[in-house]
């Protein structure tokens, strides 16, 4: 793979990743936000990212627009989830599950907040800046990614075993 442009994988990752995350939030925020709204937002995002990948930032370029939009949506959803978890209506959720959701949500929040600027300038950094500077920037991205995945690990570790994502 050395020397080859693997940007198409990132386009595919964004296309498949966001529906998974939106499903996670749909099941966490069930009863708080109409699931229809999250579905519509997901559909609009998918159309946007497909159009972006086909016509605007094509598959061999960095899809910064789609990533920025994804990050903004995830930040909004994660803030809403924090508010929901602090609300009394979340008192029915068992404490281990609440903790697990908090960790996963925190990981997503911290990663997307920190990487928003990197994503916004990602295309320029990758293709216009010297390789060393680009690598330096993406090293920070990797660091934020490690933080997010560590939060996921703790979240999955803490779950009660009863936590499940609803299929509807």
């Amino acid at each position, binding site marked *: 793979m050395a020397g080859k442009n693997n940007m198409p994988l990132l386009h595919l990752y964004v296309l498949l990743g966001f529906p998974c995350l939106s499903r996670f939030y749909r099941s966490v925020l069930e009863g708080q936000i109409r699931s229809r709204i999250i579905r519509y937002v997901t559909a609009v995002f998918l159309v946007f990212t497909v159009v972006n990948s086909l016509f605007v930032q094509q598959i061999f370029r960095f899809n910064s627009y789609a990533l920025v939009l994804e990050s903004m949506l995830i930040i909004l959803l994660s803030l809403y989830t924090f508010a929901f978890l602090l609300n009394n209506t979340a008192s029915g959720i068992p404490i281990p599950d609440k903790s697990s959701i*908090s960790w996963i949500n925190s990981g997503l*929040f911290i990663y997307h907040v920190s*990487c928003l600027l990197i994503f916004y300038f990602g295309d320029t*950094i990758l293709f216009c*800046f010297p390789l060393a500077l680009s690598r*330096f920037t993406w090293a920070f991205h990797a660091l*934020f990614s490690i933080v997010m995945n560590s939060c996921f690990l703790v979240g999955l570790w803490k779950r009660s075993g009863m936590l499940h994502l609803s299929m509807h």
Partner: protein
Amino acid sequence: METIRDAAFVHALITFAVVIFAVGIGVLLLYANFQKNLLQQQLREVTLNTVHQRELLRGNIEAQEEERKRIAQDLHDELGAVLSIIRMNLAIMERRVGDARLPAVADVGNLRHLSEVALKNMRNISHRLMPPQLEAFGLVEALRAITDQVAITGNISITLSGDIPQQRIPNVVALSVYRIVMELINNTLKHAGATSACICFDLSDESLTCRYMDNGKGISGAQDNHRGIGQKSIDTRIHALRGTFEIDKAAPGYDARIWIPLAII
């Protein structure tokens, strides 16, 4: 020159990203703190609620026992006195008429017999409502009176061991343990088919422990799931006293352990 500008840009970008990361971490810490406070508040509310419910339950049980005591006393003192007078008058009437062959005398005799039965039943009900031995001689003696009565039937022998000085445990505990043990004896007699049972008391400064065992059928899984009124009454009393009630399912027969703390009563 361009590379320096690029480097400065990347430096600024990374600095900004790191600052945002730090702010994000701050937000998360703030959130964790809020959540911790919320959880503590909820725990406090739940604890207060539980304490309040327990107090209500105890008040309820105490009021119930007071009412039982009053009814038992009224039965014994008022109805008992009236029935005794009726019985005495009937006996006098029977003696005055003298001739046992007269139908009226036989009827009076029947009435006297019925009044004696009523008096006996009334006394039994009164004693069941509030055992006089419990207040006079304490928990162990009150239970001994029951086990002695059961022993007369010859079907089962109940051993009672342990000594509880009357002043050492509060009335509410003595009465609750008495009712619980009575319920267990009742269960043994009705359902267990046991030939012997044992009630052991162990009193310390902090708690009263009572172990109740019989050599009967024990408790099956289905019975365990189906909790009858008796078991619910036991649970309620135990909960009100902050005690525990455990059944050793592995033991042959029935083996229950009641533990009541005395410090908080």
